[in-house]
């Protein structure tokens, strides 16, 4: 039995394709996912790790995403029960972890027996809680979990298991079969069922080949437990493996519930800030859709306590080029779109009033870096090396998010490099959102746009102040840097 809250029944691959670790770090840093995970974790390191792992392993099958969405809906309807189940599973795992691990087989055996005894009690509690609350749950994921707890952890089973654990204490001695192995040491030791109380079995009484370990020498005193370890190693391993299985189940249950507890935490926080969240609509990759109402960057919203939201409507769009003023909301939009995409693909709600997007086979970022962090290569070299790592991993349907890429060289050269890369990415069937200051490039793309290109630019009110909205529009030659300069310095820059 295994919990399948994260994956549809019968689906062996419960998580999506893991992103390559190096690029995942870039992704997390560029989208500032840390803030998202922190809000999901509420100080619990394990919840943080679970949130991170789920976010960075996006699902690509809309059906798998919908499976999680239905489980999530159950959780949002029954937050108290879900938190209680999570707490029970977590306590069961934690209690076990406090038992010292490692060491001799007999000690391992005794610890494993203790672990299993505790686990039996935890399983009983989980089963009872599940039986009581099951009627309020509707999703297939919870139905299966509750059903298997009812069927496989029934009272008869638990009693039988607990009786076996009693036998494993070997109160009346041990009987084993053996043969001579390497070095004529006793080997291949396998246990018979333990003997009952009373005298030794007859065949042992008959041979008279009995060794009584003298207790006076320390060496002898150690040799006896060592030999018991040899005899018990087989059953100790079986018991430890059994304990691992039970622990594995409890841990899987804790972790799968933990992901949803993280979702509950985040949903409560965002809703508390008055921000909208919704279950998104995953679309097939071929649609090349990104449609949202009031989409915001949850990371920024969590830090600032408020959000500026944007609408976007792109369908059949392979390339979105975003130009416009500095500090006009371009990067925020890019982060919001990328974060929402990852949240959708791990089955979460998204930071928007309405949201529909094509599932992406991999999400990649290429953001301008503050400074060259390597000693060996120039800035452009570093940028290109990162882009090359992305190119190594992209597939048709991947989503590539670029923020001021190739601005580390002259505008003309940057434009030349970027144009060629964008053309190739488009022809490979990826979706790209490209935020750029490279007017040369934007102009060139606008004059001769690849099929399915959408141009967005920042919006300004009459005073020239940004509205932090993006509107369709041709790239404009000024990046409004002059306006900001003028605002900061109180006068335009000298000619």
């Amino acid at each position, binding site marked *: *039995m295994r919990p399948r809250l994260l994956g549809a029944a019968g689906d062996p691959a419960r998580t999506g394709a893991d992103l390559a670790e190096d690029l995942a770090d870039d992704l997390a840093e560029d989208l500032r996912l840390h803030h998202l995970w922190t809000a999901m974790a509420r100080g619990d390191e394990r919840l943080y790790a679970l949130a991170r792992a789920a976010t960075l392993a996006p699902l690509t099958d809309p059906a798998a995403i919908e499976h999680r969405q239905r489980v999530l809906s159950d959780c949002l309807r029954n937050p108290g029960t879900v938190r209680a189940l999570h707490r029970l599973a977590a306590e069961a795992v934690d209690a076990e972890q406090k038992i010292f691990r490692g060491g001799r087989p007999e000690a391992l055996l005794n610890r494993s027996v203790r672990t299993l005894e505790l686990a039996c009690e935890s399983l009983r509690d989980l089963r009872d809680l599940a039986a009581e609350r099951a009627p309020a749950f509707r999703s297939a994921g919870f139905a299966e979990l509750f059903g298997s707890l009812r069927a*496989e952890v029934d009272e008869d089973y638990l009693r039988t298991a607990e009786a*076996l654990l009693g036998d*494993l204490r070997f109160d*009346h*001695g041990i*009987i*084993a*079969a*053996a*043969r*001579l*192995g*390497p*070095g*004529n*040491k*006793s080997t291949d*030791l*396998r*246990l018979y*069922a333990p003997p009952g109380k009373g005298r*030794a079995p007859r*065949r*042992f009484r008959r*041979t008279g*080949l*009995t*060794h*009584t*370990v003298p*207790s006076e020498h320390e*060496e*002898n005193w150690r*040799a006896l437990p*060592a*030999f*018991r370890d040899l005899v018990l190693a087989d*059953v100790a*391993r*079986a*018991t430890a*493996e*059994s*304990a691992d*299985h*039970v622990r*594995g*189940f409890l841990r899987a249950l804790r972790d799968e519930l933990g992901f949803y507890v993280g979702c509950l935490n985040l949903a409560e926080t965002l809703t508390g800030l008055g921000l909208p969240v919704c279950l998104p609509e995953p679309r097939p990759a071929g649609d090349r859709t990104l449609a949202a109402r009031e989409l915001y960057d949850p990371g920024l919203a969590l830090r600032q306590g408020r959000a500026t939201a944007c609408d976007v409507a792109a369908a059949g769009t392979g390339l979105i080029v975003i130009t416009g003023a500095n500090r006009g909301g371009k990067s925020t939009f890019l982060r919001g779109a990328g974060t929402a995409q990852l949240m959708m693909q791990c089955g979460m709600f998204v930071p928007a009033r309405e949201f529909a997007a094509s599932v992406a086979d991999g999400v990649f970022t290429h953001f301008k870096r503050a400074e060259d962090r390597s000693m060996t290569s120039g800035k452009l*070299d570093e940028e*290109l*090396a990162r*882009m*090359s790592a992305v*190119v190594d991993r992209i597939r048709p349907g991947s989503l590539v998010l670029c923020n001021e890429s190739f601005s580390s060289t002259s505008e003309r050269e940057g434009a*030349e*490099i970027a144009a060629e*890369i964008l053309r*190739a990415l488009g022809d*490979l069937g990826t979706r790209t959102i490209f935020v750029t200051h490279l007017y040369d490039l934007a102009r060139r793309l606008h004059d001769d746009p690849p099929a399915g290109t959408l141009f967005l630019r920042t919006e300004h009110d009459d005073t020239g102040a940004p509205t932090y909205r993006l509107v369709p529009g041709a790239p404009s030659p000024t990046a409004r840097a002059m306006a900001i300069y003028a605002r900061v310095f109180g006068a335009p820059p000298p000619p």
Partner: protein
Amino acid sequence: MAIRSILYGAAGPPAGPAGTAEPGHFRDLNLDQVVREAARAGGVPDLAAHYHRPLRDPDLVAFRQRIFHDLEDPAVREAAVRFTAAMERTRRRLAALERRKHPPQAHRWFLEIALDHTAAVIAFAEELGSVPLTAPGLLALRDDVTAHTRSAAFTGFRERAAWLRDRLGDVRYDLFLRGDQITVAPPDPDARPDFAERVLATFERFRQDPAPAPRDDAPPELGLDDVEAAVLDFVAELHPRVFRDVAAFCESNGGFVADGLLRAEHELRFYLGYLAYLAPLREAGLPVCLPAVSATDRTMAARDVYDLALAAKLGGVGVVTNDIVLEGDERVLVVSGPNQGGKTTLSRTFGQLHHLAALGCPVPGREVRIFLPDRILTHYERAEGPDDLASKLEEELLRMRALLDRATPDSVIVLNEIFTSTTAGDAWTLGETVLAEITRLDAPCMWVGFIDELSLLSPKAVSMVATVAGEERTYRIVRRPADGRAHARAIAERHGLTYAQIIDRARR
């Protein structure tokens, strides 16, 4: 039964001093690193002596080259590796056996070691018989080892050991432990010892991973404590005859490993160690080749050669190869160019090639024709030594004098950055003098320095220049400088990010 040498053939080592010490040129050329690593890969400590001893006899060089050639075949190489590993195992286990105190246990180990050793020798003989061998050295080894395994003493020993081991393996018994007592009895014919399986079956339903957890069986402690010894003594009481027969066999078969096999193993390690050292470089795509050698022809033609020690340090990545040619009367290669341009590396390459070729070993290059010198003489700037320039120059000149005293027309000379501690004018004059002496000797020489005009002074001298491309050093050294320039597109191309490259990469 004698087993012939695969380093020196039936004739044995040539006369002359055994010469196990490290030759003088080793440190300058970083050959000490090469030999240290190759000997380490070879796996026995005293292997270095073989690498310290270059040959001048082209026939003996060819004798070894043909063995290296055969060892290129993975089947041959793996057979040799398995044999050397088995020999080492036998040695290690026999040494450990000395420490076993309880005879019934020591005797069992003796049987296992004997069986393992004889099986390994038979396997080696069979493998050598089934692989395509052409090297006379390996053919002789095959014949000698095969004859050894067919001798009556060898086969009789092995069969008896196997029979005894099997009889011990058939012994079965049951144990009963309670409190401080252990009892031994014949096995129970009726019950099944399957308690552990019952435990597993009970909790199987919680298993998360379909694959069984890996069993990390610690290697068994080989000693025998008092309790185990007592149990074994009881088992021997239950089965007295088999234990008596085993004891008699062990006492009458002492040192059973043939000396000839031990030497064959040692000599194989000379080849295997060097090949193992080369392996990661070849995997990284670097060329190696068996050079054409001559004891009389002083010209040289070497394509795509590189510094072996440096390449090994870099793991074979980013290694730049160069060509070295000395034609007709050319004897002196004068190498100049910017700092850090790969000049010193090239000088080491030049020296290494001569030494490695004279060992009969494959050399770092694609195609190499090279001279077998009587000695290799090197002169590199010393990091330590006197501080003030005058004494530094004096120290250099003393070493130069000693070098020229030892040099013969058959020597190879490598000079690196000499006379840097004096004025350009003086360096020119000194250089001119030394060059005249080397030219007169007619010995092959590589001279690294900053004054390429030296090459104009003699028709025997040739200039090579380290090249640059834009800001980048290429580490390529050619007979004439090449130019290049970096701009954005070229950099993009280097990262595989042109349109065509991206499409191509994605489709692969």
